[in-house]
């Protein structure tokens, strides 16, 4: 029964190959169905293997299925083989189970995407890689899966790569993961050097041969690898950016499966962790605890619905590391499973919200969706209760186990160290409950803010209004200038007319003198008199013209004054507008369920951009059944997942008994008394409830200004990205330039020197090839003679 384990990865492999060959032709939705069936097939085979494994005796639950010899070089042999044991099958169950649900969900979510079938190619390839990662019976096969999931993660984050920011988010994830992979490779080399084998079988049976020194080094290097893949400090920066991918990807890869592979690896290698010095496992626990706290503080101030969940994932992965570090492998796997349920649920729920709201991701613009999307809201609330640690939902049981193991820890720093870890875990739990409650309130309760006019739309409306006003000011200025030039013209006209008048008067005087001086009887006299009459007539005409011109001038001056007054009025209106803009409150950057709709006065409303009107016509809606069915199934699992490992009696520790054969007795057993356990559980529940109530006070009742609980630094992720960018762009850059110089000068130089030496040697040897056949023949002949002489010599000596 166990030998059919090869079917588990074979199904997604088949799906992948079929989709590569026929995906485009199948198109939507059949490509999606094919991929879903492939994943479901893997799930069914896993269930069959699970029952086969469960039927065996506990001691026999470590089964190797050899497929073929992969590498055989000298003493180094690697088989492509599968290791079927409780740990790998547990991982496979939730990878294929949750994976199938997410495939189904994607059929709905990716509806209408031009690259529909490509998406499912990547999803099946991802499932295949992930299964190889957990099923591989040696470090190299696991590494193959490890790199495979990394590549799929890269491909899927930048799935919508035409947007530059998505493409660079994919690159960021890939590059950050390479740092971890470096640790993985070094650790693998070290294991081979020390043990001469990289099979888990040998590692398990011969881990004792490792010195504690090298075991410690291996653990630290694998911690680096795990910190990269599982987004721990200081390599967590890629995960929030990975939200650029489609939401099902965030749920499958960046919440439920791939990011847990670091924890899986450390659990798989528990015999080495047991050999390592105490400080290295303590380091694992501390990295986890600090990451959990750090990411939780950031999640409190995020407004993007997926980013909250991304930081929440980083934080919950920190819990898993904490659990592994304190030796609680069972709680780690337990929380990994329940986390896979509720975080996939939360991610898919947020995807459903985003889908229903036309790709809107900002929680400040959601609210009141419980009426519009009842199924999504109900299932999301189940996920919230699970992650917030409310009994009896699954998250409570698993998180409580981790806190109990942390309390119990007495390795690094003794019992006090354990208490500190426990306290950090508790504060993280408090923050978790707080920000998840915030998210639920902002998304599903209060007023539906989706239709509200948005800050940027108001700004755009103001801009449009100013632009209109500026336009009329410019017009008024133009009119004024125009009038001014008309006035100038009129003035010229007036002075011209006045000159004409003066000339006419001069003529009149001259004419009078001429008449007086002339002889009255002469013929000329009559002419002169006529001229005088004409001159007398011209003067009043000229006077009239002057008057007219002056009247016109006065009218024009009046116009200019009017235009100037109008222009001034407009200027004042602009100042007023600026003042009123300053006085108008913008929508607050932090909202609560009670935040009122931003007002849009009538003058402004006609300037609001098109996007606002389009949104008013859009109807937020519940998602199709392909998306809600996975939500419902996951909600049931998230609610009841705690039943896997109930703490009350030893018989109810199902998961612990099940995983025992994979842990070889390396798990820690809690020594705390029953009453301590009860007190710890009650404290954890109380803390969670306090956080939920506090969050309700802030975001539902509006008793506290949210700005006071959302520090600017947290919203900017404590400036980690900026610091990294500043360092690697500045001093780091100089270092890398130096290294690149070394590479160019010394390493490339050596390679080039070898090349030049070869060329020089060849130049020398050219002389031996003159191209004359007969000289070759002579050479062969002389050579033969020499050989013969040598043989003869040997014969006779």
């Amino acid at each position: 029964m166990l030998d059919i384990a090869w079917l588990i990865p074979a199904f997604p492999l088949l799906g992948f190959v079929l989709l590569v060959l026929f995906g485009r032709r199948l198109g939507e939705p059949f490509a999606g169905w094919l991929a879903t069936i492939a994943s479901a097939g893997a799930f069914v085979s896993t269930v069959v293997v699970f029952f086969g494994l469960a039927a065996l005796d506990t001691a026999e639950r470590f089964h190797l299925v050899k497929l073929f010899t992969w590498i055989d070089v000298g003493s180094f042999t690697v088989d492509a083989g599968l290791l079927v044991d409780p740990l790998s099958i547990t991982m496979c169950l939730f990878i294929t189970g949750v994976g199938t649900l997410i495939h189904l969900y994607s059929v709905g979510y990716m509806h209408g995407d031009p690259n529909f079938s490509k998406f499912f190619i990547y999803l099946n390839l991802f499932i295949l890689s992930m299964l190889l990662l957990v099923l591989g019976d040696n470090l190299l096969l696991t590494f193959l899966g490890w790199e495979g999931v990394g590549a799929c993660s890269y491909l899927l984050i930048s799935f919508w790569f035409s947007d530059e920011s998505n493409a660079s988010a994919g690159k960021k994830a890939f590059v950050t993961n390479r740092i971890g992979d470096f640790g993985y490779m070094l650790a693998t080399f070290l294991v081979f050097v020390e043990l001469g084998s990289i099979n888990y079988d040998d590692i398990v049976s011969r881990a004792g041969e490792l010195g504690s020194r090298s075991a410690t080094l291996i653990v630290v290097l694998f911690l680096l690898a795990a910190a990269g893949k599982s987004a721990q400090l200081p390599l967590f920066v890629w995960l929030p950016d990975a939200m650029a991918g489609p939401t099902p990807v965030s749920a499958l890869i960046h919440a439920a499966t791939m990011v847990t592979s670091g924890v899986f690896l450390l659990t798989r290698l528990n015999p080495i962790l047991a050999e390592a010095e105490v400080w290295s496992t303590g380091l694992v626990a501390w990295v986890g605890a600090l990451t959990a706290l750090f990411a939780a503080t950031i999640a409190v101030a995020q407004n993007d619905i997926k980013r909250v969940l991304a930081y929440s994932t980083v934080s919950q992965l920190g819990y898993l590391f904490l659990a592994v570090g304190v030796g609680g492998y069972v709680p780690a796997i337990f929380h990994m499973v329940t986390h896979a349920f509720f975080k996939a649920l939360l991610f898919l729920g947020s995807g459903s919200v985003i889908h229903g709201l036309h790709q809107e991701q900002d929680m400040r613009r959601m609210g009141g969706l419980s009426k519009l999307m009842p199924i999504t809201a109900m299932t999301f609330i189940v996920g919230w209760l699970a992650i917030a640690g409310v009994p009896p939902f699954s998250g409570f049981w698993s998180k409580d186990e981790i806190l109990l193991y942390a309390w119990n820890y007495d390795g690094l720093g003794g019992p006090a160290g354990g208490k500190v870890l426990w306290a950090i875990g508790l504060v993280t739990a408090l923050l978790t409950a707080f920000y998840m409650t915030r998210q639920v309130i902002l998304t599903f309760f209060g007023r539906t803010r989706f239709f509200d006019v948005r800050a940027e739309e108001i700004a755009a409306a103001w801009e449009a209004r100013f632009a209109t006003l500026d336009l009329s000011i410019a017009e008024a200025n133009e009119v004024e200038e125009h009038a001014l030039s008309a006035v100038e013209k009129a003035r010229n006209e007036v002075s011209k007319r006045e000159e004409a008048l003066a000339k006419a008067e001069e003529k009149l005087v001259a004419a009078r003198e001429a008449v007086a001086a002339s002889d009255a009887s002469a013929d000329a006299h009559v002419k002169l008199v006529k001229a005088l009459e004409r001159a007398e007539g011209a003067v009043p005409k000229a006077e009239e013209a002057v008057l007219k011109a002056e009247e016109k001038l006065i009218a024009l001056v009046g116009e200019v004054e009017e235009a100037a007054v109008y222009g001034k009025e407009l200027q004042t209106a602009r100042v007023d507008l600026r003042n009123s803009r300053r006085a108008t409150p913008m929508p607050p950057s932090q909202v609560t369920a009670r935040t009122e709709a931003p007002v849009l006065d009538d003058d402004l409303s006609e300037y609001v951009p098109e996007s606002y009107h389009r949104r008013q016509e859009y109807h937020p809606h519940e998602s199709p059944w392909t998306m809600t069915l996975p939500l419902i199934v996951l909600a049931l699992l998230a609610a009841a997942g705690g039943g896997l490992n109930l703490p009350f009696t030893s018989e109810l520790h199902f998961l612990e008994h099940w995983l025992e054969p994979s842990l070889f007795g390396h798990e820690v057993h809690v020594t705390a008394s029953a009453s301590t356990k009860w007190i710890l559980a009650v404290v954890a529940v109380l803390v969670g409830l306090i956080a939920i109530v506090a969050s309700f006070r802030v975001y539902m009742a509006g008793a506290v200004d949210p700005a006071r609980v959302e520090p600017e630094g947290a919203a900017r992720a404590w400036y980690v990205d900026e610091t990294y960018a500043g360092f690697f762009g500045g001093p780091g850059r100089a270092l890398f330039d130096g290294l690149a110089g070394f590479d160019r000068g010394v390493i490339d130089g050596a390679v080039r020197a070898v090349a030049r030496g070869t060329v020089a040697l060849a130049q020398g040897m050219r002389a031996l090839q003159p191209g004359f056949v007969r000289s070759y023949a002579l050479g062969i002949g002389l050579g033969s003679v020499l050989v013969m002489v040598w043989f003869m010599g040997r014969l006779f000596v």
Partner: protein
Amino acid sequence: MEVTATWYLVLSAVLFSMGFVGLLVRRNPLIMFMCIELMLNAVNISFVAFSNALDDIAGRTAVFFVLVVAAAEVVVGLSLVVALMRRRPSLSVDDLTSLRG
């Protein structure tokens, strides 16, 4: 006077030397071919002589191999010579130096 193996060996050596010298001093590829054939058959003679003297069939067997190889070599070589003849009016191997290093 009995004809011993030595006679044949001397004959073989003489023929071989003639072939070798011919190979070195002549420039016509056809003649050089003949010289090579001469050398091969000189060796064949010594093979047969030794085979007879030592009463071992292996020597005669080797001759057949030599003959077959020589025939194959003539096929290739002569076709090359014919192809070259077509291209060049007079043929001297010393002109064929396009493979010079």
